[in-house]
């Protein structure tokens, strides 16, 4: 009987088995092509691992001279300061852009313009932005601040716009029905609904900015990154590992602070 010959097969999102295996084969094929393309042959990897072990010995223990310690401290403070300033300027710029990028508040042309800007800001890595900004405004922390501000705007206004799109239109209608002007509508109908998320997002972005501010120095945009690159170029790996340790610690502290503040606000 036909019915008794039917066996159960696990359901699959691909619909048909042929498609499923086809997708798997394509993915595996791409990985093989990739491995061939980047020259990842096993002998090279093993040689690299051997060298990696030697290098690991050079990294430990972290060791610094007093002058180097001073330099790490100075540049780390610069990084953190850059992150602080850029978080504030970035968020200040994000507020209008976020409102203009919210579909329910903004007219269509303005909406697309701001969404486009957000996409561009999000598409490019901070390092690429930093390189261009360094060419435009010169070496130093100013370039870092501009870079981080630009990245903050993309992230923050996107999330802000999404929050604004998710608000309860009822309270906006209520405020409007009470005779509010458009500005009052924003202030009393929209703003109160997004303030709690706003605080959490700001602290979250501050945390990300601290991370970013530790690397933009590699391309000359201020902060501890420049010290790190110099240490690498001098093959002073014990100094490198000391710097890395400081970066990891600062990032951890920022993440901890951000987690605590976000938990209290939400």
């Amino acid at each position, binding site marked *: 009987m036909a019915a008794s010959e039917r066996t159960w097969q696990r359901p699959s*999102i691909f619909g048909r088995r042929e498609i499923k295996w086809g997708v798997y084969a394509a993915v595996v094929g*791409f*990985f093989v*092509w*990739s*491995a061939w*393309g*980047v*020259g*990842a042959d096993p002998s*090279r*990897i093993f040689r*690299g*691992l051997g*060298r*990696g072990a030697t*290098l690991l010995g050079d990294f430990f223990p972290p060791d610094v001279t007093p002058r180097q310690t001073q330099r790490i401290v100075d540049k780390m*403070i*610069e990084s*953190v*300061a*850059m992150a*602080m*300033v850029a978080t*504030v300027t970035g968020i200040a710029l994000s507020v209008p852009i976020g409102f203009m990028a919210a579909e329910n508040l903004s007219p269509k042309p303005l909406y697309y313009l701001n969404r486009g800007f957000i*996409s*561009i800001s999000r*598409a*490019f*890595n901070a*390092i*690429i932005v930093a*390189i*261009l*900004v360094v*060419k*435009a*405004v010169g070496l130093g*922390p*100013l370039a870092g*601040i*501009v870079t981080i501000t630009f990245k903050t705007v993309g992230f923050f206004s996107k999330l802000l716009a999404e929050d604004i799109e998710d608000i309860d239109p009822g309270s906006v209608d209520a405020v409007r029905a009470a005779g509010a002007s458009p500005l009052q509508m924003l202030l009393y109908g929209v703003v109160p609904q997004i303030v709690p998320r706003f605080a959490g997002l700001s602290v979250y972005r501050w945390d990300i900015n601290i*991370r970013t501010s*530790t*690397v933009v120095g*590699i*391309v000359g945009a*201020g902060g501890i990154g420049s010290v*790190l*690159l110099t240490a*690498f170029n001098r093959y002073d790996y014990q100094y490198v590992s000391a710097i*890395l340790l400081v*970066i*990891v610690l600062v*990032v*951890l502290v920022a*993440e901890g602070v951000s987690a605590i503040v976000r938990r209290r606000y939400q």
Partner: protein
Amino acid sequence: MSSETRRWERFDRRRRLGRTVGWLVALVVFVGSWQFLDMSLVAAETVPREVNDLLTRMYPPDVAYTDEIAAPLVETLHIAALGTAGALVLAVPVALIAAENTTPNRATYWLGKVIVTVSRSVNTIIWALIFVVVFGSGPLAGAVAIAFRSVGFLGKLLGEEIEEIDFGQVEAVRAAGASPVQTLLYGILPQVKPALVGLSVYRWDINVRDSTILGFVGAGGIGVQLFRSVNAFAWQSVAMILLVILGVVIVSEAVSAYARGLVR
């Protein structure tokens, strides 16, 4: 009457004080940072002009340059794909020991947490600096750097996913006489598979973006071309590369969103 003098207030005195102090601290830190960095207000005025100048020089993008950037672009995609695959292989054991319900003991749990933390707090470009020393410059170093950066992300989120699974199923499989490997394959894996696929695709999307910068430290990809053009002040070529990167990033984001929609 006391009830007449009562006024509605949003916060009690302690919270109001807390908020005021919070705002003050934020303000002081901001102004202090500004002062520390020796930034004058002139900066705010010159920046838009300089950026505008740069953008003018970039227009129009050098379309003829496309041929030269096709190969590096493909290399970038290879780095992202291999890095994600490598990260996935490394992240599964890390996730298993970093999840409270599957980790063998406290020591392995903390080991898992440390791996996740270190991987996440060191930026891709710093990993690339390290692996260029280990493997020599080239895309292999880039792929390994991407993998090491992604392990923390995947390990953390996958670990959280494993902590949420229904442990009854794991015990059922174990009670049927399964070996540890079988328990993993039939008890744990099916429960986290959608998350596993979704997270890997999401990370791949991030990695495409990250792998565009590896070239700066000699770890391959389109970054090599980008930095060469920037240093040669060939701004129109730079604009072309940026446009191509933008296109690739938008496509990979769309692919990633579509694939994540499927598994959700």
